[in-house]
């Protein structure tokens, strides 16, 4: 297998593309906006990071051959599900998307709606992976098998987005420190 190397400081030459942060176009009915900042262990913002998101459609399905249920006919088959946003000089990023549906698991459990999030930056020799969960899904979050695998409530809380007064969802990413985000071995 080929090992990982850091994305370095100059990925913005290639990786961002104009509609990268727009999983759906601004103004799409039901669209949600995720905002956040990326921080290092000293509390400094990270201005050269990259956030990528991957998720199901609102119907809880993936337009992908390895989702054995397949895309819903006439449903969200055109939903790209993938977002990519570099961080700005103030460490901020923004993704516009649709809220995904819940997902079945092979052993009969149900995963609460979530986005898988990859984080890349200079100084990260491999991507780190986290998940974004939704604050209005308390019932589903309470039985989500991944959230339930994290025993400390304060750690679990790092994975749940926070509603902003303007209706956006805030998901800050702390690579290190007191508020360090939960990262996964994927």
């Amino acid at each position: 297998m080929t090992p990982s190397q850091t994305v370095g400081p100059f990925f913005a030459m290639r990786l961002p593309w104009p509609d990268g942060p727009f999983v759906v176009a601004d103004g799409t009915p039901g669209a949600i906006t995720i905002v956040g900042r990326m921080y290092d262990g000293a509390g400094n913002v990270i201005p050269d990071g990259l956030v990528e998101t991957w998720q199901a459609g609102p119907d809880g399905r993936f337009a992908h051959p390895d989702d054995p249920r397949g895309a819903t006919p006439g449903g969200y088959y055109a939903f790209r599900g993938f977002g990519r946003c570099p961080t700005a000089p103030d460490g901020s990023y923004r993704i516009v998307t649709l809220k995904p549906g819940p997902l079945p698991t092979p052993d009969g459990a149900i995963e609460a709606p979530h986005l898988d999030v990859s984080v890349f930056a200079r100084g990260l020799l491999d991507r780190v992976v986290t998940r974004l969960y939704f604050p209005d899904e308390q019932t589903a979050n309470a039985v989500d098998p991944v959230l339930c695998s994290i025993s400390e409530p304060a750690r679990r809380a790092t994975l749940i987005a926070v509603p902003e007064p303007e209706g956006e969802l805030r998901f800050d990413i702390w690579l290190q420190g007191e508020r360090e985000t939960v990262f996964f071995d994927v």
Partner: protein
Amino acid sequence: MTAEVSTTAFTGTGELVLPSYERPSGLHPPLDFAGYRSTVLRHPKRPLVLLPHRLTEVTGPLLGADLITATDSDLTMQHAGEPQGQRIILAGRVLDSDGRPVPDTLIEIWQTNAAGRYRHSREHHPAPLDPNFSGIGRAITDAAGRYRFITIEPGAYPWGNHHNAWRPAHIHFSLFGRAFTQRLVTQMYFPGDPLLPLDPIFNSVPDEKARQRMIADFSMDLTQPEWALGYTWDIVLRGRGAAVFE
């Protein structure tokens, strides 16, 4: 599009059988690697939490040909004139660790010009920009997992990691594979580079054989007379195990 969410979306099938992907251990660099100074404040200190491979992890973005234009894989044809430097043909295959080709997958690359200069606003290396070279490319693998770029051999460049630190010449690669688990960002190096033993980023990969897999091979077969040197480099992503119930 309405936000209607229904649990009836689950009821179409009986059992849910998903592929499972290998979990490489000891392959990737440790996130905490003192030799690379920027890791100090950017590596998580808490242990990673195991994430089982379920629907979100075994699927992934299948970004396609709509992103690719004709000159994306020929970095020498993106401007009015030809760039300075040694023209190279770089070709190879994207495979999984079971040896199966990964077809139709997007590859994104970026690199310095022949003088070791990136075209980027935060680049301060006092080497000349080349008006005929952007240093960015894209390709999609074919049905056999093959890709091919034409570009210029990148240069080495200094960086502030330690006194007299120089990065060996390299090309950055970004790959998606077919699943979220297979996402890979890496760097490809050139054979015989005397800077390789001195580079903390290259040497952050703990296993010697794995480090060697980041180095392309010079290929006389791919070299074209009177025109360009050839290099081959295969990229190997995680393999899929047999379908299992988790």
